[in-house]
Each structure stands twice: as structure tokens, then as C-alpha cells.
């Protein structure tokens, strides 16, 4: 058994080069793409990383720091791309492919022009360091029957205040992600960005970046979280909620509103068809009335390991994996939407999703506020989790205390 695995790592029995792609868990999209992109010269196999984004980062970084040649390709969550690139874990992408990702004009079997947010999230030190594969965003999902009962007009942009009040008055519970994990920081980042602020500025300065979370925008974000946490609209599991539990709240008897990623749309098809028929969707709620929302940005970029023994083949494979067709194949199977307009043109998507929803996804990605691109994102994120969790403890002074805490953590003066 051991012998056969060791042999498989070196090359498959038919003489083709064996490329190993470390993927985040999904419902089979990336495995299908791996099969699509295997050629006569190389074969791509997949290895599944843990569910949790931070755990994916830990496993990849530990292996890469040890120069593990068993990783050729990897699916990287955008907030950690800068860290990996800065540590020198990623093989440089050829200039022509970088240009194709930024400006388009590449061959059709390679990466297309990616959405602006996707390019930003994959760029470190002026270079594109990962191939944008899929780009996810959150929209506001609502139960049509509930919105009708509450008498709230969902055709116009809504604010967090409005949906919290509407849910509280009508016995509804709002699904959000507020466990002590990366997903909670995604929410906080979206709230702050939606109020026109940011967590940090001058991210390229590394530990000397300017911490800007202690601002009116930070206070506006804290006010929303505090209001929801102390409202009857808060689900009882608020402080341990994640994408899955929030989805369950939404599908339950008190389901009303939910902020969640694109893949939730087909979540109820098999289990509760009544809920599936009742789902409405609109742009992410505004933090401040009248100011355009900045929805969360997520997704996956494909990185090629610098320690791979087959960098050239891996680059070709990455270009194939991220071509428009494979972005579409993956989106159709997993609900993780393409990182390019060309990917959205994949015909099967129009059959699985209503046209207005596909348009909403693209508008939302374009409006999205990626998390700051910095090699220290993990520290910043953990520092925010420490100071902003549990949601019920968030108050007017939270942004100020978290600002000084982040600064001290970055300079090694405090434990995290």
C-alpha cells in the first residue's frame, strides 16, 4: 500500500507526469476540472484540504515551508495569497498569462480577463501571483413570503437596520456568520467597507500598515452587529453561527433574511422544495442608508508551488483549470461562480440559475470589497476575532480597542 502510494507520487504507471492539486472541499467541481485538464503528458489528481479556510492555510503553509515537492497546484483562499507570495511559496506566473488575466486577449483555452476584484485579490507586489478560478460573493437572500408579511419593499436597496427591524417585528431570525472564525471577519469587513471605511490602509507596508478600523465606518459596523445581537431577530446560535447553521436558520420556521454565498441558492432544492420556491434575492444590505453596499468577496485562486518538480506542466494545468469553460463547469457543479464574465457565459449556468440572479452575482462581485491584501491578514483577522467576538459584546468602543490591539499584535507586543 505504502509502496504504491509512493510510486503514484512520482509518476503514473503509464509514464505521464503526475500533478497533485490540493483543493478545498467542494461537491466535485474541482475533481471534474482536474479530469478535464489531464492530458497525454500529465495527469492531475486532487487532494482535499480541510473545510475551514484557516486550516487550509495552515496545512498548505506548513507543507510549503518544508519545501514539500508533493504539492504542484493548490486552491488558495484570496486573503492568504499575499502571505504565500510574500513568503516565496508561489512560482512566478509567465508574463503573458498575467497579462491575459489582467487585460484579456489570451487564448480561449487559457485564463480569461478576470473581474477587477479577482485580479486585486490575486495580485501581490504588482504581479499576478495566482490564477483567479472562482469568485464568490454574498447577496441578501430572503423568504418572499416573509418579506410580504413584513411589508418590506425588496425591489429597492435595503439597509441592515430595515431588515433587523422587519425581522424583529415579525418573529423572523436573520442568518449571518458570527462564530469566532474567518467568516465573521468577512461580515465585519463588508459592514465597514459598506460604510465607506476599511480595516487597514497602506497594506503594502506590512506590519506598519495604517490601522483604520477605529473610524465612523467602524462604529457604524459595530452598531449593526450590536443591534442584531440584542434584537429578537438574532438566532439563538448567533455566536456560533457559520454558513451552514445560518442556512439552516433561513430554511427553518423563523427564516427571514440571510446573507450568504452564491452556492446557497440550490441548497434547499432536494431537502425543502417549499423553501427553494420561496427564495428571493437582492443586493447585500447597506450599512448606512443611501451608501452603496460593498458585499463580501471570496473565491479561490490557483497557485503553482515553487517547490513543485514540474512547474511548467503545472502552469499549463493552471491555465487550463481556469479557462472559461472549466470555470463554468465548476460553477455549474458547485455553485461557486466564475471569476470572469467569460466564465458566466457557460451555457449550462443559464439553465441552473435565473438570468437576474446571474446578473446580481456579477454586479455583486464588481461592487465587492476584498479583504485587505497583506501578508499579515491572518494576524489582523485573528485580532479582530478576539476583540469583536462574541457579537453581543460589540459596542461603540470595540473599533477603538481592536485598532490598538491589531497594532500591538502586528508589532509583536501582544499575544494573539
Amino acid at each position, binding site marked *: 500500500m505504502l509502496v504504491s502510494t509512493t510510486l503514484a507520487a512520482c509518476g503514473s504507471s503509464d509514464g505521464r507526469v503526475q500533478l497533485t492539486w490540493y483543493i478545498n472541499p467542494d461537491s466535485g467541481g474541482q475533481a471534474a476540472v482536474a479530469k478535464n485538464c489531464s492530458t497525454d503528458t500529465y495527469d492531475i489528481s486532487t487532494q482535499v484540504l480541510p473545510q475551514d479556510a484557516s486550516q487550509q492555510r495552515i496545512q498548505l*503553509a506548513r507543507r510549503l*515551508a518544508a519545501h514539500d515537492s508533493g504539492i504542484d497546484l493548490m486552491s488558495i483562499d484570496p486573503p492568504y495569497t499575499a502571505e504565500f507570495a510574500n513568503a516565496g511559496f508561489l512560482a512566478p506566473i509567465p508574463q503573458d498569462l498575467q497579462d491575459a488575466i489582467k487585460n484579456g486577449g489570451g487564448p480561449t483555452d487559457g485564463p480569461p480577463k478576470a473581474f477587477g476584484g479577482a485580479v486585486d485579490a490575486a495580485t501581490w507586489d504588482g504581479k499576478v501571483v495566482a490564477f483567479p478560478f472562482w469568485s464568490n460573493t454574498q447577496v441578501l437572500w430572503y423568504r418572499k413570503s416573509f418579506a410580504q408579511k413584513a411589508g418590506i419593499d425588496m425591489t429597492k436597496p435595503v439597509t441592515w437596520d430595515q431588515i433587523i427591524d422587519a425581522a424583529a417585528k415579525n418573529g423572523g431570525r436573520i442568518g449571518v456568520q458570527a*462564530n469566532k*472564525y474567518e467568516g465573521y471577519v468577512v461580515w465585519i469587513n463588508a459592514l465597514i467597507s459598506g460604510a465607506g471605511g476599511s480595516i487597514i490602509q497602506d497594506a503594502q507596508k506590512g506590519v506598519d500598515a495604517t490601522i483604520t478600523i477605529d473610524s465612523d465606518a467602524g462604529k457604524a459596523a459595530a452598531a449593526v452587529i450590536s443591534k442584531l445581537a440584542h434584537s429578537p431577530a438574532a438566532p*439563538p446560535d448567533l455566536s456560533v453561527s457559520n454558513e451552514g447553521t445560518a442556512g439552516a436558520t433561513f430554511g427553518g420556521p423563523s427564516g427571514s433574511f440571510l446573507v450568504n454565498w452564491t452556492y446557497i441558492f440550490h441548497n434547499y432544492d432536494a431537502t425543502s422544495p417549499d423553501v427553494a420556491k420561496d427564495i428571493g434575492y437582492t443586493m447585500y444590505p447597506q450599512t448606512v442608508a443611501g451608501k452603496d453596499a460593498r458585499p463580501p468577496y471570496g473565491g479561490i485562486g490557483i497557485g503553482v508551488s515553487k517547490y513543485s518538480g514540474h512547474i511548467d506542466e503545472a502552469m499549463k494545468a493552471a491555465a487550463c483549470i481556469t479557462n472559461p469553460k472549466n470555470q463554468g463547469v465548476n460553477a455549474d457543479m458547485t455553485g461557486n461562480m466564475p471569476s470572469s464574465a467569460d466564465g458566466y457565459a457557460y451555457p449550462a449556468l443559464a439553465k441552473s440559475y435565473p438570468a437576474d440572479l446571474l446578473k446580481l452575482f456579477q454586479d455583486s462581485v464588481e461592487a465587492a470589497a476584498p479583504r485587505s491584501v497583506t501578508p499579515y491578514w491572518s494576524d489582523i483577522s485573528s485580532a479582530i476575532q478576539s476583540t469583536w467576538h462574541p457579537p453581543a459584546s460589540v459596542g461603540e468602543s470595540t473599533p477603538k480597542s481592536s485598532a490598538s490591539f491589531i497594532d500591538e499584535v502586528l508589532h509583536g507586543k501582544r499575544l494573539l
Partner: protein
Amino acid sequence: MTTLTTPAASSAASKRSPVSDRSIAENRLGQRLIAPAVILMLIVTAWPMVRALYLSLFRYRLTTPDDRQFVWFRNYLTVLGDGLFWRVTLNTVIIMVVTVAVELVVGFVFAMVMHRIIFARGVMRTSILIPYGIITVVSAFAWQFTFSINNGWVNSWFDWLPWISADTNWYGAHWPAMFAIMVSEIWKTTPFMSLLLLAGLAQVSEDMLEAAQVDGATWWQRLFKVILPNMRAAIMVAVLFRALDAFRIFDNIYVMTKGAQNTESSSFLTYRQVIEQFQLGMGSALSVLLFLTVLLLAFLIVRLFRVDLAQARGEG
């Protein structure tokens, strides 16, 4: 543990006189025979410890290796001056004291049952030991689901209690979360405690118990005046082992709360620095402090309760 018994062994040796050539040769042979094992032990245990000590003097992060900087004892000062370290240490001490105290009482009851039971002895002993045979991570998941607000049974079984309802979020606040963690720890390790206590119970002579009974001692008097004093060594060894074990608690916390609601233990904090933050310097400083704390605890318990490990092993 061997270090603790060395003084007794060497004082016994010094009483022996005079040493013959033959025994010197035998000693030499013995030393040569164990040398490979000692060297191996040094490589796998002493080297990492020395390395951790060395790393703890650096500011060193795995993902920014070029930033490595020698900072003397600054990591230690940062750690000791940080409220988080002391909060986490307090949590760990609370978990240790509460779980060991409860386990001692419950474990003793189980040990008595295992000792005295006449019918279905094998079945009873085995079933008491089952939790200890389950991998900690697995039992932690079981308990995580048990207390979960979404699919646990605690809320529905105990909703007749005034402070528990279907909406009770055990992981939503510090004390309930600590309670859940401690329950899982107690469930998991009580069998170990009772096993050690059973060994102690077996050492209490039946003659003494009978003599006490003949003298008219009540059950409680026999328990407190005969049984417990005679198994003191076993109790102290059980307390020592379990206390040191409980102080290093990690798995349950990792699975059940991931350290949220201020439920982190010392091991968990160390894990986060080294594994999550890749802060090898700071993390090593924490590991060294954790090691020293465990050493101090062992010393205190041995001194305070005058534990004689040699006696407990039947060597005294």
C-alpha cells in the same frame, strides 16, 4: 519520573559496601547496553527541547523567514506581561482543579464498584473503562454534538430545569462553555482515575478492615480511618498524573469551542502561536513556560502531599 526515585536508589546503593570488580564490570556492560537507547532518547526528546529554548530567543515567523531576529528574552517578557497569558493560565488551573476533584470522587466510587462487585464483574469493569478507550477527539465531537444547540440532546432532556431551554446556547458564553468542556474531560478520564484507585484499593488489607469491623467501626469510619489512609500513595499518584494531564488539555477545547468565549488553555494558546500564527519564537517561549509550569506543578504536588512514587510502585 525516574529523577524522583534517583535519590532513594543512590542512597540505597551507597549503603552497599564494598563494590566488587565483578559488579563494576557488570555496571559498565549495563551502561554500554543502554547507551543506544539513551542516545536515541536524547535525540528525540532533549534535542527538540533545546531547540525550543533556542528558538524562543528569536522573533521568527515561518512565513517571513528573512525577518528572523535575535531578541534575547523579549518573547518571555511579552508573554508574561500579557493579560491573555494569565487569563489562559487561570482557565487551565480552573479546568485542572475542578476536573481532578470531580474525577477523584466519581473515580473512587467506580473503583469501589469494580473492587466489590460480585456478579458480572468483567462486564462491569469493561464498561466503566470504555470512555478511556475512546480517542479524545472522537469523544470531544460526541460531547460537542451533545451540547449543540442545533442537534444536541442536553437541551431537550433537561429543559425541565429552569435555566435550560431549547434555545440555550452552551457555547455562547464563558461558563456554560467551560462546563461543557469539563464534563467531556471528566467523562473521558474518570476511568483512568478509577483504574489507579482500584490498584490502591487492592492493596488495602482485608485483615485490617475485618479488625476495624470487629472493633465496631461504622462504614464511614472504615472508609476514612482505614481504607483512605492506606491507599494514600495511590490517591496521590492518581492526582499527580491526572493533574499534569489535565493541565495540558487541548483536544476537547479545539473540537468544542476552538477557544471561543475565553475557553483557551495554555496548550491551546501555544498551539495557536506555533501552528496557526507560525510564530516559532513566541510559540517556543510559551512551550518553555508551559513545560516549566508543569514541572513546578509536579514539584508542588510531590512536596505538598509528600508523594512517594517508589512506595506507590511497591518498591518502598
